[in-house]
């Protein structure tokens, strides 16, 4: 039994009307493990902290229990200042008797005092068994690895290189640029794609900190946060790169709507990408184009909105309406999606340029008239209720971006998550671009279909998140928390009693456990760099072998016994 000194805070007289501190002192003095009971006016003041620390030093106590306000108020401040004064974190306990007791039972001082006594007893019981997790640290490799040299990857590479870090840029195709290479103009500024891409391509060429690996494909990934080793084939030769962080900017794939609206069979039914190609090489000839939106999107198979197809149609429709005199341009849509601060104006501008919009219902899609060559499109206008026949010489299908085929494979190698459609995903919306594995970031259309502008933006953001890792020479596992300072420890296995049943491996949401055969039997091993101390493994461990020392079962058990 450790000796415990208890500090009771009156909170400037805020709670001693409700809680009877003399009663608490009396009750606590019955406990043989309590060696010091001190009632303080306001623990969060610096003067009182100093007094507290000197009292702790004078007494022969091993651990300190503070009964004050909750950790979310000023409790954490008190803990932090005690740690600064040299008291170890796992030797400090905090009991919340203000928010959790005095303030909610202000009408019943007697019960509140009893509750405070129980809460402090629970705190003492917990503190007796509180232990500290082991920690480990990894030397951070100073280089970054970026997968994919599209706009997002290029922007990330540029930002990282200009911050002074070496960047290895892997690309599947022969040249950098990604999908931006294939299109003529970008929305919403109608700028040439080559203008947008130019500075980045020059940076890749000229910045000695960026190494570009065309025609490469990742084969396996080893290592953890701060020190990944990525094996890949580079121009059909096996190679490997070490990196401190990985940025996934693999982009997405164009959906080819084979079989829809005669695509693939009828010559003048094309998709947006072919439209772009034709306008790039100048072979585009149309006066009466019809754009059909949501082809293969927002349906059962792909129930998502790809968000970029509406602006793309607006861009291409207004371009024809403005450039070609006498053109008649139709957009058949299921609701135009123009989110953000610039796209609504873009839509209004397109409207005023003479492009006509017809809304159709999902149940009644437009019909193509003509078997070898589309002469007209028949559509039921959902607003007016009239079926219209639109003469046309070109049907452009707006299709969504779909995830790359090898996303799942890559996600498995990198140990990150994909969403139900196959795009890479974050695990928590409040930590954007961050994945299940710390030190791996996602950006651009690999994460979700986005415009080139947003890709660049996300690439730069991911780069800055990566810098926060790269600038450290060593990373301790205990600091790998999404919310700084709030990691409670790591799971710990007692190898002697582990049966190797594998429940923890199945339950761990971060794949931090694995089973290893040691001396003829299987035991579970925890990877501290991955463990987030959620406790999923603890609750499924059949015999309590897996524990988080800061929150072990003995603590919980004793707290329950002392609860009333």
């Amino acid at each position: 039994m450790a000796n415990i000194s208890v500090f009771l805070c009156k909170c400037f007289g805020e709670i001693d009307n409700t809680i009877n501190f003399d009663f608490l002192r009396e009750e606590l003095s019955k406990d043989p493990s309590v060696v010091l009971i001190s009632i303080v006016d306001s623990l969060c003041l610096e003067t009182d902290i100093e007094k507290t620390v000197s009292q702790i030093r004078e007494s022969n106590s091993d651990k300190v229990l503070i009964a004050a306000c909750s950790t979310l108020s000023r409790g954490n401040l008190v803990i932090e200042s005690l740690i600064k004064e040299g008291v170890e974190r796992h030797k400090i306990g905090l009991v919340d008797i203000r928010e959790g007791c005095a303030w909610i039972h202000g009408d019943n001082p007697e019960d509140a005092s009893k509750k405070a006594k129980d809460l402090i007893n629970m705190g003492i019981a917990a503190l007796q068994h509180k232990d500290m997790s082991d920690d480990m640290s990894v030397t951070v490799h100073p280089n970054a690895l970026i997968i994919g040299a599209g706009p997002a990857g290029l922007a990330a590479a540029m930002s990282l290189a200009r911050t002074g870090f070496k960047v290895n840029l892997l690309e599947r195709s022969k040249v950098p640029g990604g999908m931006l290479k294939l299109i003529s103009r970008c929305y919403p500024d109608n700028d040439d794609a080559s203008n947008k891409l130019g500075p980045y391509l020059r940076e890749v060429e000229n910045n000695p900190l960026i190494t570009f690996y065309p025609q490469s494909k990742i084969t396996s990934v080893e290592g953890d946060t701060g020190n990944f080793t990525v094996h890949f084939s580079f121009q059909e030769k096996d190679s490997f790169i070490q990196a401190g962080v990985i940025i996934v900017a693999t982009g997405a794939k164009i959906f080819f709507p084979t079989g829809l609206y005669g695509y693939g069979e009828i010559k003048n039914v094309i998709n947006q990408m072919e439209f772009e190609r034709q306008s790039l090489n100048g072979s585009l000839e149309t006066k009466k184009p019809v754009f059909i939106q949501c082809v293969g999107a927002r349906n059962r198979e792909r129930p998502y909105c790809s968000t970029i197809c509406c602006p793309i149609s607006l861009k291409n429709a207004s371009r024809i309406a403005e450039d070609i005199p006498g053109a008649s341009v139709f957009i058949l849509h299921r609701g135009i999606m123009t989110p953000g601060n610039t796209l609504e104006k873009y839509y209004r501008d397109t409207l005023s340029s003479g492009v006509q919009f017809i809304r159709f219902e999902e149940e009644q899609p437009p019909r193509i008239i003509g078997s070898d060559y589309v002469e007209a499109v028949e559509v039921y206008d959902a607003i007016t209720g009239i079926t219209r026949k639109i003469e046309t010489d070109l049907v452009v299908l707006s299709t969504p971006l779909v995830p790359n085929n090898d996303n799942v494979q890559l996600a498995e190698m990198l140990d990150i998550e994909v969403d139900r459609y196959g795009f890479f995903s974050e695990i928590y919306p409040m930590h954007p671009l961050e994945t299940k594995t710390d030190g791996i970031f996602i950006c651009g259309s690999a994460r979700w279909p986005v415009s080139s502008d947003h890709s660049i933006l996300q690439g730069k953001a991911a780069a800055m998140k990566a810098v926060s890792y790269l600038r450290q020479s060593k990373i301790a596992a205990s600091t790998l928390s999404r919310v700084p300072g709030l990691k409670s420890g790591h799971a710990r296995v007692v190898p002697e009693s582990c049966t190797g049943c594998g429940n923890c491996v199945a339950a761990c949401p971060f794949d931090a456990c694995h089973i290893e055969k040691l001396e003829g039997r299987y035991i579970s091993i925890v990877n501290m760099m991955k463990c987030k101390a959620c406790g999923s493994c603890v609750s499924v461990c059949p015999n309590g072998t897996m524990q988080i020392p800061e929150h072990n079962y003995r603590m919980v058990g004793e707290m329950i016994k002392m609860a009333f």
Partner: protein
Amino acid sequence: MLEKTKNIARQILEEKKASAVFGLMRNEWNIIQPHLFEDPAGLANLVLEPKWLLAKLAMRILRSSPENYKLAVICRGCDERALIELIKRNQIEKENLLTIGIACSQEQAAICLCDRPYPEKLDAGEKVSGVDPFQDERVRKFLIGNDKERMKRWADMLKRCIKCYGCRNSCPICICEPCKLEDDVWVQRGVVPAETITFHLIRAFHLSDTCVACGACQEACPVNIPLLYLQLGMRKTLREKYGYEAGLDPETKSPVLSSAFEKPDTDREFPDWINSLREEDES
């Protein structure tokens, strides 16, 4: 069935597919006991009755044997499921285990309340249909009524407990060392009968998704507490909600261990034309 089993066992031993066959033997004093048949000649004494769970013993034999020791176990449905659960828990190496599956009789299934009285890999005997435990008169009588009545029935039963740990020790899947039931934090020590809510329910819940309903706990209980009834509700839930049953396949992990939610992507109804288009798309 016996002859067929003997033949299979003999073949395994002669072809050296396994180092030994593990089954039941009638010894010279006419007593039935588990036996390791290493010599094909010994198989003459092989018997199949009564029901005797060999899974845990087989695990012990395999664990104390050299790495390449292969064991063929003559097992019933429940035994096979238990072995598969032990494989899942890394207690048995899959490649070291052979099973000779034998089917149980209808009478045996009725006694055990077994809903699956045959192994997945059936080698000898005829499959008989299982019993729905919830249709059984004994179970119904025990589990009907409101909470209060049920609690009273359970209390009367569980008060008989002498805390012999027979239920735990006989369970083929209870493998932990040390066990939480011996830990003062969870179960008060030195108290008989055992604390109901902790001792019995902790044991029952630990087996919630691994119980193969072999009934060994119940058979081992010296005071006849119907311990299997504790598991029935949870087994039913697992089957109905997640389509999961313990011990059917070594690769399928318990749904209670994963965060996957069996929910449809979206509850929207989609018009038919989309499906027709999709079919065209795929072709």
